[in-house]
């Protein structure tokens, strides 16, 4: 199967169940809202070393923020509810609350909740106030620019993490162009984020290492400089590989993000699109590339 001359490999991405949360971060203007949301989702590229995977997203078309001010969505994914609470507490407390004019609300209608504002309220040193509005409790924490408004609890859902695809290209220039086009298209998919810097991974990994105590190492079969020294998965004419990892609040969001991303990545200089998996026996979710692009 080919799209614009680019081969779509007959393979699949293997993804895993995670817990997901969606925050709405608002500010006096969109710039301040983005500042807060991006600070909160920074250093969250991989669950392996960052505690969670996170990123920002535009609000859905027609979606209003609870306070009517400009806002962005911040999506966070991690391995357990307990860890989600810890991550949200840290990130909202250290990065959203500290950001000028910010406020933070739950952006997910979910039955399961973790308490965030209900714990951050103590920063108010006894002067915090709460308001119950439409069944949602909002905390007003006194701060130097007025008040930080934060919702008591945030919803968490069982989500999907680790959707992915690889772009093999004749040059780094071509790979970058494809990756950037893919990320731009994927950013429009609500409920999905690409947690790596700029949405792109350059240092994909494999789950083995020659070093004792190290569990992951560089994905050497896909490293072009090692062709000749190591068994290579690259074909002749392939000189660079970039990967995009996507997490989503549900399977459909990941599938849609991958679909639009792959379609956008099929540009001149790209030889094929592939995906990473573990043989299919570890992850609960499989995204077959050819099926995705056929829909």
């Amino acid at each position, binding site marked *: 199967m080919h799209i614009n001359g680019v081969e779509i490999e007959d393979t699949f991405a293997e993804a895993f169940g995670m817990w997901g949360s969606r925050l709405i971060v608002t500010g006096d203007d969109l710039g301040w809202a983005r500042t807060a949301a991006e600070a909160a989702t920074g250093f969250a590229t991989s669950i392996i070393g960052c505690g969670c995977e996170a990123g920002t997203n535009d609000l859905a078309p027609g979606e209003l923020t*609870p306070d*009517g*001010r400009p806002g962005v969505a911040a999506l966070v994914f991690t391995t357990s509810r307990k860890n989600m609470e810890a991550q949200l507490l840290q990130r909202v407390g250290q990065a959203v609350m500290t950001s000028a004019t910010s*406020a933070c609300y739950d952006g997910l209608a979910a039955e399961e909740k973790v308490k965030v504002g209900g714990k951050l309220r103590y920063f108010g040193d006894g002067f915090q106030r709460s*308001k*119950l509005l439409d069944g949602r409790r909002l905390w007003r924490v006194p701060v130097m620019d*007025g*008040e930080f*408004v934060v919702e008591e609890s945030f919803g968490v859902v069982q989500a999907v993490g680790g959707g992915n695809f690889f772009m093999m290209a004749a040059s780094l220039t071509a790979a970058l162009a494809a990756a950037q086009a893919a990320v731009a298209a994927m950013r429009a998919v609500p409920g999905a984020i690409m947690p790596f810097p700029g949405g792109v991974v350059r240092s994909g990994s494999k789950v083995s290492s020659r070093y004792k105590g190290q569990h992951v190492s560089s994905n050497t079969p896909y490293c072009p400089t090692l062709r000749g020294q190591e068994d290579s998965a690259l074909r002749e004419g392939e000189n660079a590989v970039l990967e995009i990892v996507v997490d989503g609040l549900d399977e459909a969001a990941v599938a849609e993000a991958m679909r639009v991303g792959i379609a956008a990545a099929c540009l001149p200089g790209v030889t094929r699109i592939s995906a990473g998996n573990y043989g299919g026996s570890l992850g609960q979710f499989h995204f077959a590339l050819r099926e995705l692009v056929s829909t």
Partner: protein
Amino acid sequence: MGCIACAALVLDGAGVTLTRRESSSIPVEADSLCPDRFVGLGPTEIAALPVFYGRRKVELGDLFEVEGAGADNVIVSGDLKAVKKIGQGMSMGRLTVTGDVGPHLGAYMSGGEIVVQGDAGDWVGAHMSGGRIVVQGDAGHFVGAAYSGEPRGVRGGTIIVGGNAGREVGARMRRGLIVVLGDTGEFAGAGMLAGSVFVGGRLGGRPGAGMKRGTIVAFGEAPELLPTFRYACSYRPVFLRCYLQSLEASGLIASPGLPDGEFRRYVGDMNSGGRGEVLVRDQSQ
């Protein structure tokens, strides 16, 4: 603030209609005129429900022409100025009054919705704990207030008054939201424990007297405050935008636009701990 959104008279699928047979100034205690009491009853059984007409115990059907069945949508019409306690204790359904209504409307209600397409008497929503009351005209005194001698009043729900209201709106309220788009009399929020009172017109003098916590917001002319209230700052309260956004989204209040302005914050009543607040829109901004 914008005008109250018109609560359309729901005629299609109307359940029960009650029409007052004749005008009278003799008080009627009509706590049986409540959707909860109509569940499973036909018009004959509804007409047989008891009411007090002055000091005489009579049947609802003696005073009202009753038609239809079903408790979800009740419409009451006619001269109701002397009819008290309509919707008292209701927990479900929608009750519409097509004109003016007497006192104690929706007292102790815990759910459902009451809409009055005219004026209401005193004690609208006294001690309510849930649900919604919309009075398109004026309301009397003690809207959402606690009865005399009761330490705590309203515990939840929303009351919207499209016109003016009398004194002691939200007295001793514990939770919930009261919005008066017109003017209020004195002592709004007296003894408030929590909750929120918004006044679109002129907030009467000495609001929040004795308040422990809670929020009173004056969108109109600055009120005369007690000396036990201290000025804190002028700021843009984000939480207030959440309320106005919610009221507009629910269609209760039509907006000319969110009041993205500065409010002067006064904290008090210092005689009661000083943790309440009166926010006054800064008209100079």
